């Protein structure tokens, strides 16, 4: 079924919202602004009534799947339950209706929250200080690389222009490196351990050691495996003068168990929408705070929150600061949710989160192993990578087909074809907030799909069958991009 666009609804003259009354004496528009600076025609926005707006976006919501709808095992995205209390706290007028440029004495509660959250994140990651300014994980990565660049330059090591990145890393890592004007050198994965191939790393360091600015790692990595040699790797990088950057996307596995700072990392970013369960909002907003060790603190973007006898205030950055990475102070609404989450859980609760996330992942890994090849059949952390290699070989059923078939059972799909180094990858992250029953149901559906792949592969290859639309023509979308509605454009029902 198709829901027509809001632009195709309504008729000229209809309207929904009423505007505030014009309660001041008015003057003619032309007397206020020269005609040449004025818009000639009103923006051609929709002309719809309130009930049409309500039904339209209610229908769109009904055509969307969220964590509240069902199981969402999207690997590396940590689609855990988003507590409703966090939403209520972010909506409090004292948090939601304050302006970022208000004098500090009128926003003491807001600065206090940021001040305390910084300290909590520093403790969780074992870092000296944390900036809450970056807007998302990738923005944090870039900020972290800028800090590293500023640090090296200040050390007189401006020639360091290489960032080392494992072949299984998140795509943002190399993209952020490029944006920070670094050259990316890929490090291979060890096919036995799933960790860094130490020999390969050694070779790279021998060849380029004095040009290495940093290595970007996530640990556990995107295979869901904890690299046990992390301390050794850290020492190797530090030995050649490089910095260690921790991609926090997988931090849901480590809270209270191990800390990036203790592993040897110099910089870490958080994905608060993942680890601290601020909702993903269909693709954002997130927040990507950056924690750093003491030697990088002078380079942090400013201002940073501070406190004295008079109360909380913003302290301007010093002369070595890289400067601001966005306007204002960060995604405060997201930070309120993260603060609430940390205070609700406390230290024991956060550790229990990570342990339970690990247990749920291992349980699924164990229960799925009969039907699907597991990329690395080892104890995993918060996620693991299963594959459709067997299915593809036997019946041509691919990871995509399995993903689509899952949708028919009211479940979202794993992340597929990632990490790139695993053919037919299905990266599965159940998170700690799933019940055993929902895990068992997933196992049973995956078992059924494996059966179908054997006995009726067409059923799987043509899935989904129960969704509002079937598989969509991605090639057409890219070949003849249609990125906006235009008057006269027709849609096919």
């Amino acid at each position, binding site marked *: 079924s198709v829901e027509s666009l809001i632009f195709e609804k309504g008729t000229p003259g209809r309207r929904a919202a009423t505007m505030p009354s014009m309660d001041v004496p008015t*003057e003619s528009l032309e007397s206020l602004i020269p005609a040449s600076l004025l818009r000639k025609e009103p923006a051609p926005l929709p002309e719809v009534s309130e009930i049409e707006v309500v039904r339209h976006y209610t229908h769109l919501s009904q055509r969307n799947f969220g964590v509240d709808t069902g199981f969402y095992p999207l690997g590396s995205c940590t689609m855990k339950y988003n507590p409703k209390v966090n939403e209520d706290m972010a909506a*409090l007028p004292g948090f939601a209706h304050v*302006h970022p440029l208000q004098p500090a004495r009128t926003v003491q509660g807001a600065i206090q929250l940021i001040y305390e959250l910084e300290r909590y994140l520093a403790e969780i990651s074992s870092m000296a200080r944390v900036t809450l300014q970056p807007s998302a994980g990738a923005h944090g990565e870039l900020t972290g690389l800028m800090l590293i660049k500023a640090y090296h330059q200040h050390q007189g090591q401006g020639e360091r222009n290489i960032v080392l990145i494992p072949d299984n890393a998140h795509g943002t890592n190399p993209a952020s490196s490029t944006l920070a004007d670094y050259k990316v050198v890929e490090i291979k994965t060890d096919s036995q351990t799933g960790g860094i191939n130490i020999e390969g790393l050694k070779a790279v360091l021998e060849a380029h050691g004095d040009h290495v600015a940093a290595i970007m790692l996530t640990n556990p990595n995107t295979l869901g495996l904890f690299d046990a040699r992390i301390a050794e790797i850290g020492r190797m990088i530090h030995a050649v003068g490089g910095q260690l950057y921790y991609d926090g996307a997988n931090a849901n596995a480590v809270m209270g168990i191990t800390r990036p700072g203790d592993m040897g990392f110099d910089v870490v970013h958080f994905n608060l929408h993942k680890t601290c369960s601020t909702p993903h909002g269909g693709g954002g907003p997130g927040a990507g705070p950056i924690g750093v060790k003491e030697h990088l603190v002078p380079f942090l973007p400013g201002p940073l929150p501070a406190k004295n006898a008079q109360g909380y205030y913003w302290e301007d950055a010093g002369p070595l600061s890289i400067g*601001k990475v966005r306007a204002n102070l960060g995604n405060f609404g997201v930070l309120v949710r993260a603060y609430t989450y940390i205070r*609700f859980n406390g230290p024991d609760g956060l550790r229990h989160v990570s342990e339970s996330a690990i247990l749920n992942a291992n*349980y699924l890994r*164990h229960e799925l192993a009969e039907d699907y090849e597991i990329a690395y059949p080892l104890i995993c952390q918060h996620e693991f990578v299963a594959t459709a290699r067997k299915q593809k070989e036997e019946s041509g059923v691919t990871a995509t087909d399995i993903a689509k078939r899952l949708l028919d059972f009211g479940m979202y799909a794993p992340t597929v074809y990632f990490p790139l180094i695993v053919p037919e990858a299905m990266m599965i992250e159940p998170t*700690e907030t799933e019940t055993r029953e929902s895990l068992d149901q997933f196992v049973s559906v995956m078992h059924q799909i494996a059966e179908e792949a054997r006995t009726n592969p067409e059923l799987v290859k043509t899935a989904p069958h129960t969704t509002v639309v079937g598989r969509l023509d991605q090639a057409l979308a890219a070949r003849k991009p249609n990125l906006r509605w235009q008057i006269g454009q027709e849609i096919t029902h």
Partner: protein
Amino acid sequence: MSYVPNTQEEQQAMLERLGLSSLEDLLTPVPAEVRLPEALDLPSALPEPDLKRLMIRMAAKNKSLDTNISFLGAGTYDRSIPSVVPHLQKRSEFVTSYTPYQPEVSQGMLQATYEFQTMVCQVTGMDIANASLYDGSTAVVEAVLMALGPGGRGEIVMSAGVDPQYRRVLQTYAFSRGFTLKEVSIENGVTSLEDLKASVNKNTAAVVIQQPNFFGCLEDMQAIEPIAHQGKTLFVSVITEPASLAALATPGMYNADIAVGEMMSFGNTMSYGGPALGFIASKQKFMRLLPGRLVGQTIEEGPSKQTGYVLTLQTREQHIRRERATSNICTNQSLLAVGATIYLAALGKQGFRELGELCLQKSHYAFRQITAIPGFTAAFNGPFFDEFVIKSPVSIQKLEQAFEQADIIGGYPLGESYAGMDDCMLFCVTETRTKEDIDTLVNVLKEVQA
């Protein structure tokens, strides 16, 4: 406390399936040398009711605009949001979903984003737009990077009338990326055309002008455009107050190549400045250079050929192209874009026009009233939209004290960002201020003066 549903008994049973006896057994891959020996040093868990009480008290320490009258804009705007917007935007199917990788069960978010892209075009007069960027300042960065191209070298010419925070952010990126930033001076509140002419040369990748500029003054974009378009330079228009698009000539009209800015105030709360809603729109020809996500319309593969929406042109994106991506953006501001979409649908053609008129008329009424007070004068004499600069006969500090006592959040003290403007305050009057509010402000100013 935690949101973990499974009980200890259930976890034990699950461990047994794995042949393990304790949660600790799952942590064997983490070597002792990096293990945290004790519990994290964080405050103890609080049950939900106690936590709410604590948070409500913390929030109450902030002076919110529910109980204070604000004349503060300077890049962040307090807007009247129709009740329908949050009711729909906060539907949990939107809130708790992620980037729509599986379009068949994500048509809602995809279609809403396609509608957002269209509306950005409708209000800016541009050809195409993306699915959102972090905020206005990083949107300027992305526009500049588009102009610079893959090499990332070159010179950017930017007016000093661009939001000082945005300029600071661009400076940060200029350092790390290695491009040069040249600032054009201000004359009577607007970009100096002479200085601009002098600044643009064959190395200029882009000219960046804000409309209305940070002082609220309207730039003569028609006069700027030919200067900006010398050689292969791109003309980038920055909009921090999106309501201005309801009344003023659009970037499309004055032939901008890229329009970027901030749309947070369309349907979303200020929330101390974030999450914000950066937008980017451009001419059609830059389609494959646009950063971030794009949603496109397509049809089903199967025989029924129904219309549907997908993430498209993903070959520009980091998760496919890695170090060769057009940008590193992954998570963006989708939920805010949904808010803006519902907001603009609710206002519609007529309401949006009225929004522009209300801001214009109310701010000009305030301007007339304030400048009628002896001693308070206009800093500039050009046209403005809903912000204007007033020179105060008394110190800004004294003004701020008087405002605080009257539960007023005053304007932005320009001395913080511009040398020589210590006696100037940037006042903002949007559709949310009533005549009563404005008259209250005027009375406070009269009393301060007396």
